[in-house]
C-alpha cells in the first residue's frame, strides 16, 4: 500500500487503456458464455449429503493418536508489560503437559501482513507472538496451556497468575482522531481522489446534503470456531485448519518455522463459515509451536471468547458524505471521507469509500480516508469490508437528497447511473444496475411506497419502504493453478487447493469442468482443500470462483493437444490440430466435421494409458485494470416500527442483482440471502461492545452479541439480471459479498419512510426511535 504501488497500478491502467480489448483475457468472450450446459443449472451441493450425514470432518474433528489440547490465556490490559507471570499451579495441575509463555516460546517471526503483491503474506497482525513480555492490546495472547484433555487445559489456564505493569494506551476512537494518518492507497486503489472542485461545487449546488454517519464495531461469528489440529513428524508439519487461505498459510507456516514449503501440508476440506475472519492469526503459530515443543499432535479450538479476543472484526467508522445536485437531481458533487481504525500492526484499511467511486456519475469527487491507531485487536476483512458500511452512508445520503428534492429515490438513482467509470473513465465490462433497479422495484411493488414519511400505519406500527444500492468490485486473483485429469474410465477430476466454505465452490467447479469437457456431472469429481494440490488463491474478495475458472479454462485449452498427441494416426481425429477440435460428447470432435470424433475412453485405451493430466494457471487478470468491473445490486426493504417501543420488525427484503452469469441458482441464492441477513445484523442488531476505558470487548458471546435470529429474518426474495460479463471467465463476477452491501442503507431509509426519523448511526436500535 505504497505510493510506488499507486504509480505502478496507475501506469498499468493507462497503458492498458491503449491496448485493444481482444488482446486481453476476456477479449474473446469465454466460449461457455451463453451455452446451455450444467452452468446455470440448479445442481445440488456435491458435499450436501456427507454434511447432512455428519460425515464431513472439520478441522477440530480430525482424530489422531496421542492428541493433546491447548487453551489460550489473554491479556486483560490494553498496553504495558507482564510484570509477573506465575505458572507453577498450572504446570502442576492434572494432565498439564506444557505451559507456553514468552519465556519458553521458540523464536518465531510473525507472518508478514496481508499484501496484494505477495500471496504468501497472509498475516492479520505483525506483532510478536509470545516473543516478549509486552502487551499491545486487551485480549492479546499471553500464554497457552497444553494438557491431555481440553477440560484440563481450560482449568489450568485459569491458574496462571499474571500481574501487569500497565502503560498509557489510546483506546478511544474520538480521542485518536486528531492523530489520524493518511495512507497512500487502499488495497490497489489510490486513497485520496480529487476530481473537479467538489467543495466548491457542493457550496453552490441548489440542493445538497452533508452529514456524518457512524457505524459500529463488529466481530466475526462463523458458527465453526477457529480451530486447528497440528502434527509434526520430524521436520514435516501437517495442519488441519479452518482457513480461507490454504496455500498462503502453508507458505507462511514454512517461513515462520524455517522449514521448506514442501514439508508443510495444510488441509482444510471444509470450512464452517469464513466471511474474512478465517485467516492467519496468532493461534496457528502458537499451536504449531506448542505441538513441536510437546512432541505430540495438538488441537487448539478457540473458545467463542477467544475468537473475539484475538480475531479482529470490522472497524467502527465515522463517515461524512455530502452530495450536491442541480435542479434535476443530477449530482454535481460527491464527497466521502472519514475515519476508521487501522493499528500500525494491522493490515485492513476498511475501504468504505471504494464503492462510492463507481456508484454514481457526478461532476466532481472528493474522497479521502483517514486511519486512526488505537490499542485493539487489529480489525480485519469482514464480508464486503468497506462496501458494507460505505454503502450505508452513501445510500442514506442519496435517500436524504431524494427527500429534499421530493423525488422518488429509485428515480434519483437512475438519473445518476454512470455509463462508464465516473472518475477514471474506464469502460464498464458490463453494467446493468439500472435494470436491477427497475426489475427490483417492479417485483417489490415499490409504487406502493408512500412518498411522505410516517403516513402508513397498522395499529401501533408505522410501515415504511426503503431502498439502497449495493456494489462490490470484480476481483480475479493472479496465480491460480489447477490440475485437470481425464481417465480411461471416462471420468475427470479437477484438483486445486481451493477452499470450500459452504458457498458451493466445489459444486460450481464440477459444473464447469463438465461443460468444458463435454462430460456429464456424474463423471466429474473435484479435489480441493489441500495445500499439496496446485495452489489456488485465497477465498476472499468474492474472487475465488472466477480465479479458479480462469485456470480451468487454461487447462481445458491445453488438454486437446495432449489428447490429440495420444490419439495418434489411427484415430478419426488424426491430422487435426488443437485449435480445430472441441471437447464435447465425452471426447474430442472436429469443429468443422463433427462426425470426426473419438471419446476420451477410446483415446486413452488405444494409448494404453490410465489417465492424462494437464496443469495450468489462469492468465494475469489484466481485465481488472482495463475495465471497470463491479457486481451491483438494488436492495428493497419493507419494515414496521412500533410507535410505542421503537422496535423494528422487517417484513420483506428483496435483492435484485447484476453479477454476470449466475453459475448455480441454488447456491447463489443462498449466498445472496446469507449476505442480506448479515446486512440486517449490521443495520439492526450487531455491535461489539468495546469498552473505551479499557479497550476490552465486553460481549464476547453469542448471547450478548446479537446476530439476527430466525424471527428477525423475513421472507427474502432474490432476483438477478443474469447478463454475462463478456470480460470474465464464464461471464461471472463475484457474488459472495455483494449481498450485504446496500442492505443497511435500505433498512435505514425504510425506517425514515416509516417514521420520518433519520438514524445515521448503526445499529438502529429502538432507543434511537423513541
Amino acid at each position, binding site marked *: 500500500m505504497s505510493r510506488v504501488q499507486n504509480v505502478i497500478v496507475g501506469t498499468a491502467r493507462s497503458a492498458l487503456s491503449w491496448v485493444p480489448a481482444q488482446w486481453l483475457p476476456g477479449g474473446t468472450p469465454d466460449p461457455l458464455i451463453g451455452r446451455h450446459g450444467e452452468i446455470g443449472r440448479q445442481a445440488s451441493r456435491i458435499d450436501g449429503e456427507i454434511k447432512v450425514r455428519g460425515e464431513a470432518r472439520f478441522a477440530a474433528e480430525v482424530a489422531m493418536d496421542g492428541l493433546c489440547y491447548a487453551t489460550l490465556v489473554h491479556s486483560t490490559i490494553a498496553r504495558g508489560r507482564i510484570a509477573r507471570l506465575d505458572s507453577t499451579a498450572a504446570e502442576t495441575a492434572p494432565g498439564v503437559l506444557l505451559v507456553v509463555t514468552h519465556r519458553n516460546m521458540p523464536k518465531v517471526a510473525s507472518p508478514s501482513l496481508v499484501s496484494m503483491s505477495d500471496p504468501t503474506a497472509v498475516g492479520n497482525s505483525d506483532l510478536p507472538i509470545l516473543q516478549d513480555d509486552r502487551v499491545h492490546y486487551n485480549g492479546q495472547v499471553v500464554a497457552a496451556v497444553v494438557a491431555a484433555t481440553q477440560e484440563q487445559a481450560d482449568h489450568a489456564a485459569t491458574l496462571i497468575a499474571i500481574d501487569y505493569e500497565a502503560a498509557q494506551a489510546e483506546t478511544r476512537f474520538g480521542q485518536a482522531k486528531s492523530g489520524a494518518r493518511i495512507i497512500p492507497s487502499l488495497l490497489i486503489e489510490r486513497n485520496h481522489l480529487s476530481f473537479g472542485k467538489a467543495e466548491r461545487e457542493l457550496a453552490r449546488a441548489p440542493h445538497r446534503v452533508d452529514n456524518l454517519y457512524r457505524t459500529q464495531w463488529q466481530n466475526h461469528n462463523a458458527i465453526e470456531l477457529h480451530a486447528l489440529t497440528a502434527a509434526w513428524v520430524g521436520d514435516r508439519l501437517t495442519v488441519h485448519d479452518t482457513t480461507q487461505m490454504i496455500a498462503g498459510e502453508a507458505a507462511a507456516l514454512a517461513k515462520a518455522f524455517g522449514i521448506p514449503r514442501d514439508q508443510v501440508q495444510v488441509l482444510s476440506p471444509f470450512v464452517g463459515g469464513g466471511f474474512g475472519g478465517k485467516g492467519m492469526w496468532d493461534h496457528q503459530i502458537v499451536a504449531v509451536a506448542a505441538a513441536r515443543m510437546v512432541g505430540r499432535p495438538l488441537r487448539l479450538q478457540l473458545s467463542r471468547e477467544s475468537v473475539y479476543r484475538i480475531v479482529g472484526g470490522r472497524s467502527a467508522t465515522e463517515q461524512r458524505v455530502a452530495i450536491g445536485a442541480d435542479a434535476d437531481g443530477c449530482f454535481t458533487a460527491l464527497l466521502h471521507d472519514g475515519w476508521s481504525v487501522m493499528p500500525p500492526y494491522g493490515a485492513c484499511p476498511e475501504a468504505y469509500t471504494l464503492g462510492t467511486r463507481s456508484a454514481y456519475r457526478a461532476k466532481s469527487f472528493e474522497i479521502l480516508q483517514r486511519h486512526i491507531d488505537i490499542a485493539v485487536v487489529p480489525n480485519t476483512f469482514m464480508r464486503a469490508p468497506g462496501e458494507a458500511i460505505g454503502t450505508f452512508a452513501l445510500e442514506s445520503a442519496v435517500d436524504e437528497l431524494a427527500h429534499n428534492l421530493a423525488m422518488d429515490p429509485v428515480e434519483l438513482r437512475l438519473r445518476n447511473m454512470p455509463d462508464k467509470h465516473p472518475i477514471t473513465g474506464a469502460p464498464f465490462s458490463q453494467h446493468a444496475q439500472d435494470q436491477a433497479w427497475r426489475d427490483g422495484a417492479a417485483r417489490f411493488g415499490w409504487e406502493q411506497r408512500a412518498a411522505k414519511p410516517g403516513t402508513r400505519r397498522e395499529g401501533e406500527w408505522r410501515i415504511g419502504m426503503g431502498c439502497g444500492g449495493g456494489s462490490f468490485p470484480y476481483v480475479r486473483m493472479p496465480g491460480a493453478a489447477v490440475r485437470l485429469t481425464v481417465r480411461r474410465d471416462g471420468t475427470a477430476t479437477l484438483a486445486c487447493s481451493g477452499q470450500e466454505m459452504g458457498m458451493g465452490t466445489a459444486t460450481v467447479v464440477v459444473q464447469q469442468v463438465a461443460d468444458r469437457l463435454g462430460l456429464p456431472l456424474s463423471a466429474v469429481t473435484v479435489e480441493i482443500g489441500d495445500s499439496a494440490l496446485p495452489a489456488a488463491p485465497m477465498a476472499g474478495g468474492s474472487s475465488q470462483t472466477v480465479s479458479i475458472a480462469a485456470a480451468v479454462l487454461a487447462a481445458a485449452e491445453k488438454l486437446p493437444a495432449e489428447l490429440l498427441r495420444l490419439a495418434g494416426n489411427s484415430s478419426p481425429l488424426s491430422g487435426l490440430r488443437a485449435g480445430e477440435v472441441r471437447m464435447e460428447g465425452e471426447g474430442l470432435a472436429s469443429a468443422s466435421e463433427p462426425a470426426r470424433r473419438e471419446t476420451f475412453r477410446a483415446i486413452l485405451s488405444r494409448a494404453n494409458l490410465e489417465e492424462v493430466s494437464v496443469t495450468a494457471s489462469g492468465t494475469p487478470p489484466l481485465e481488472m485494470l482495463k475495465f471497470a468491473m463491479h457486481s451491483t445490486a438494488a436492495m428493497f426493504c419493507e419494515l414496521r416500527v412500533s410507535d410505542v417501543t421503537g422496535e423494528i420488525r422487517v417484513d420483506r427484503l428483496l435483492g435484485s442483482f447484476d453479477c454476470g452469469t449466475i453459475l448455480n441458482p441454488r447456491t447463489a441464492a443462498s449466498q445472496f440471502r446469507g449476505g442480506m441477513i448479515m446486512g440486517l445484523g449490521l443495520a439492526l442488531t450487531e455491535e461489539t461492545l468495546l469498552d473505551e476505558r479499557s479497550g476490552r470487548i465486553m460481549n464476547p458471546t453469542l448471547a450478548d452479541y446479537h446476530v439476527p435470529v430466525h424471527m428477525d429474518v423475513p421472507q427474502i426474495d432474490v432476483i438477478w439480471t443474469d447478463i454475462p460479463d463478456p470480460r470474465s471467465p464464464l461471464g461471472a463476477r463475484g457474488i459472495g459479498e455483494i449481498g450485504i452491501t446496500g442492505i443497511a442503507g435500505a433498512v435505514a431509509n425504510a425506517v425514515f419512510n416509516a417514521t420520518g426519523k433519520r438514524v445515521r448511526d448503526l445499529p438502529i436500535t429502538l432507543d434511537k426511535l*423513541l
Partner: protein
Amino acid sequence: MTPVTYLRADSSAAAIALGAADGHRLLGGGTNLIDLMRKGVEQPAVLVDVSGLAAPITEAADGSLVIGAAARNSDVAAHPLVRARYPMLARAILAGASAQIRNMATVGGNLMQRTRCVYFADAAGSRCNKRVPGSGCDALGGFTRYHAILGASPACIATHPSDMAVALVALDARLHLAGADGVRSVALANFHQLPGDSPEVETMLAPGEMILAVELPPVQPMRSTYRKVRDRASYAFALVSVAAGIVVEDGRIADVRIAVGGVAAKPWRAARAEASLRDGPASVEAFVQAAQAELAQADPLPGNAFKVQLAERTLVAVLTDLAGGDA
C-alpha cells in the same frame, strides 16, 4: 472450568443436607450456572443436582396452584391450568430464552439465576462488587443498556434477568423454602433483594435453604398479558418488560396488578402505579399518570435513560390494550 464433584439428590431432604455445606451449590437445568462456571464466575466445589426431584404441578384445596421447583420452564408454560388461569405466566416463560433452554431450565433455577451484567460475567478482566464484594463496579460508566433504573445503588446497577419471575410477582406468587429448620412460605416479591451495600446478597434464601415450590394463589378472571421489549425478536433479555392484569367493572378498575422487568435487581412490582389506578377510571390519562407515578422514582444512568420513557410507554400501551376489550 474448575474441577467439581457432582452429586445427585434423590430427595429434597437429601438436597438440603448436601447443599448446606460450604462451596456446595444446587444445580437445576444448569443453563446459567454451568455457563458461569465455564467463565470462572462461579466455582463451586460440589454440585448437588436437584433437577431430577419430583416436580408435580398440583391444585391445592383452596384453588392455588403449586409448582415443584424442579418443574421445567417449558412444562409450566404448557400446563393447561397455567394457560387457563395464569396466561400471563405462560407468555412470560415463552418470551424467555430459547425452546432448548426452556426445556432444561427449572423454575427454582430460573428464580436463582444471576444477572447478565457483562462486567459480572468477565471474571478475568472486570471489577464487580457482586462477584468480589468491595472490589468496585466497572459497569458504572460502562455499558449500561441492560442495567437498572430503579432500586440500584452505587455498589451495583445490575438487573435480574428473569421473565418468568416478573409474571410470578404480578400474580402474588409465594415461595416454599425448605431448610434444616423446616419449611417457610415467603412472598416472591420480597425474595430478591435490592443491592444496597451488599449486592452479593441476592435473595432472602438462608444458607442451606432451597426453593421447594412456587405457589400461585387463585386469581379472579382478568385480562392479562406479558409484553417484552428487547433488542431482537427472540433470544435476548428484556430492556423492559411488563406483566399486567386488569379487571374493569363499569369503567372503573376493580383490580390491577403490574410488575416490570429489566429495570431493577428484582422483578419490580409497580405498587405506586397500581395504587394510582385502583378504583379509578380505566382511561389512557389514568394509565399515563400511573406509569409516571411509578417511574418518578427512576434514577437512570448515562446509557439507559431511554428505559424510563420505554417503561412508561410500554406500561401505558399494555394497560390500554388490556382495558380496551371485554374484561
